[in-house]
């Protein structure tokens, strides 16, 4: 089979993996090697669905021994199959990299023959790239659940990032939809990678960086939203647990795209829950960058996020007694909790108010967007939203604004 056809099949098969991050790993690469990595990450293009393309994202192979119901590459489905060789992947990566098409490689694979065999192929590809082609660009490798951890560890010494997909939010759904996979088998390599990353950091400190880096950009995971019945609350709690216990860098959420007519799954003509996915990302952000706890966002009485307003506004409206916040006196943490104010704006405010007392005009001039924040702040004692301070009314206004803004993210049904 020609390389072009393989690329077509195996990039098509890899596109459902969400991660495209190329950040977090810096200082790789030197004067005599090809490429380097940047702490901030770089997007090289955007595909027709508006997603950033930063990595050559491909499967090594889509011949799979498993038959997970939600997966487009499951064994029982009739579709074109292909496998690369390690050399082909390495050459493709280098050719693309040298032309500045990509920031690096994201190599995943279906489980072909056995987990060990598959992991060996990924390892060999990584080793070719790093050792033969002198390639020091970004490298994200999938750790194959069930493979010998020695192989995964070796791969981790060559990769910038690794990930194990948790796939479904609960053991029960996993049993139903992916009977050949076990939650324990997925969590074990995740846990081991997390532990090794920590050990590596400690050892590198002790031996003054003599030791090789292990997965310097951290590890991540992905789970599918909407293929199984779990609530947002259990997903958010799971994510929070992963961040806290497994030292995880990112959890990615992927709205389920119907790929199968299995009676266990949403029907083929149903549309992917993109809005829900968007809300989960927002909530995830609140956990990681805004100092929120999972139980502040949802509770037993409220199992799912409001699709009409974002989770931060939702929280603010449920805690209206903490508002309005005076921008001239509120501390940074509280400013962060104001809907419409992010880390950048909050930092700007804290900086600028040292110089003088801020009014609405000042904020506007500082390019701080007040469209949403206005309902929740006072500037020098003044409340400038043109509506009464009432949660019902504010909610209605926010919903109207969201509806306009979100049209960008909504899917286009013009097939």
């Amino acid at each position: 089979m020609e390389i072009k056809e393989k690329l077509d099949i195996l990039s098509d098969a890899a596109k459902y993996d969400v991660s495209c991050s190329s950040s977090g790993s810096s200082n790789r690469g030197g004067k005599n090697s090809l490429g380097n990595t940047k702490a901030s990450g770089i997007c090289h293009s955007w595909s027709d669905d508006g997603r950033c393309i930063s990595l050559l994202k491909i499967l090594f192979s889509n011949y799979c021994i498993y038959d997970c119901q939600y997966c487009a590459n499951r064994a029982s489905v009739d579709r074109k199959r292909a496998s690369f060789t390690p050399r082909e992947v390495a050459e493709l990566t280098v050719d693309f990299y040298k032309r500045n098409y990509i920031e690096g490689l994201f190599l995943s694979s279906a489980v072909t023959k056995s987990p060990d065999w598959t992991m060996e192929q990924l390892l060999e590809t990584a080793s070719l790239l790093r050792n033969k082609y002198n390639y020091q660009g970004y490298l994200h490798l999938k750790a194959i659940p069930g493979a010998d951890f020695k192989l995964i560890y070796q791969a981790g010494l060559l990769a910038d990032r690794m990930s194990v997909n948790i796939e479904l939010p609960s053991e029960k759904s996993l049993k139903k939809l992916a009977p050949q996979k076990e939650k324990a088998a997925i969590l074990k390599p995740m846990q081991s990678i997390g532990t090794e990353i920590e050990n590596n950091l400690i050892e590198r400190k002790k031996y003054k960086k003599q030791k090789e880096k292990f997965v310097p950009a951290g590890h991540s995971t992905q789970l599918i939203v909407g293929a199984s019945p779990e609530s947002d609350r259990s997903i958010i709690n799971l994510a929070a647990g992963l961040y806290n216990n497994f030292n995880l860098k990112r959890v990615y959420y992927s709205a389920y795209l119907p790929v199968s007519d299995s009676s266990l799954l949403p029907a083929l003509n149903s549309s992917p829950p993109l809005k829900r996915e968007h809300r989960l990302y927002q909530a995830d952000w609140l956990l990681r960058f805004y100092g929120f706890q999972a139980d502040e966002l949802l509770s037993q009485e409220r199992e799912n996020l409001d699709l009409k307003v974002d989770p931060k506004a939702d929280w603010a409206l449920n805690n209206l007694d903490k508002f309005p916040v005076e921008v001239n006196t509120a501390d940074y943490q509280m400013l962060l909790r104001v809907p419409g104010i992010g880390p950048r704006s909050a930092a700007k405010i804290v900086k600028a108010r040292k110089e003088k007392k801020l009014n609405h005009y000042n904020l506007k001039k500082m390019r701080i967007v007040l469209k949403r924040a206005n309902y929740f702040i006072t500037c020098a004692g003044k409340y400038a939203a043109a509506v009464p301070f009432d949660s019902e009314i504010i909610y209605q206004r926010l919903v109207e604004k969201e509806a306009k803004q979100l049209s960008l993210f909504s899917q286009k049904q013009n097939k």
Partner: protein
Amino acid sequence: MKKEVFVYDGSYQGLLTALYTAFKRKIIPVKIIKAADFREDLFYKKTIIESSEAKADLITKKIRENISANSLKNVFAAYLSELEAIEDHIFRYLFLGFKEGEKIDEFLSTTAVIKVQEAAKKVRRESHRFKGLLRFQKTQGNKYYGAIEPDHDILILLLPHFKARFSIQDWLIHDKKREKAVIYSAAAKEWLLIELEAEFEPQFAADEAEVQDLWQSFFAALSIENRYNPKLQSQFMPKKYWEYLIEEPGSSRKRKK
């Protein structure tokens, strides 16, 4: 006495010399303008600024010591923006800066500070964008050629990035709009800024078309049909940057199933 307009040669050194002159003579010029943009008029006195390395160095040092290194970076980036009247904002920014010191960058509601910071931000954003959007093509003789037409004069900001990344290959980045280019030689590990006319086209390597074809098919295959969203795509990647891309936005719909 007539108010003065400072006319400089358009170089960064020239601008610094003009700024130096204004502070030295303790006057506020009505305008600091590039010779190329200057139009004669009767109302103001025209003062031609002779670019001077010594004067430019001196004011550079003053800015770094009396304001901050960060502020100096802002001035340089704002200069590269080539936005209209940016020189006048830079002058006012420094005028205030010499009075207030490094906290000038916290004066976020002062017009000159906003203008300079925003111009600098635009330049940095565009240069960051091109770190991703620049496409090299392999030429005969194994050199890599990339063309751009940026809004701002960012060539000099791209240089350190590509030098670090592609230190073992020869490359050239061509700013077609400003008819100049930066050339890097892997053997010498050195770079050079040259003039290069917009029409320049190199001879491409024999296997170049093949790799481009692979990239195009990867680009088309990657998009998820149920999420098709060209509006979002062009929001992140405005159409003005499409000309020199190898991939074709929109091509996922033409792909053979």
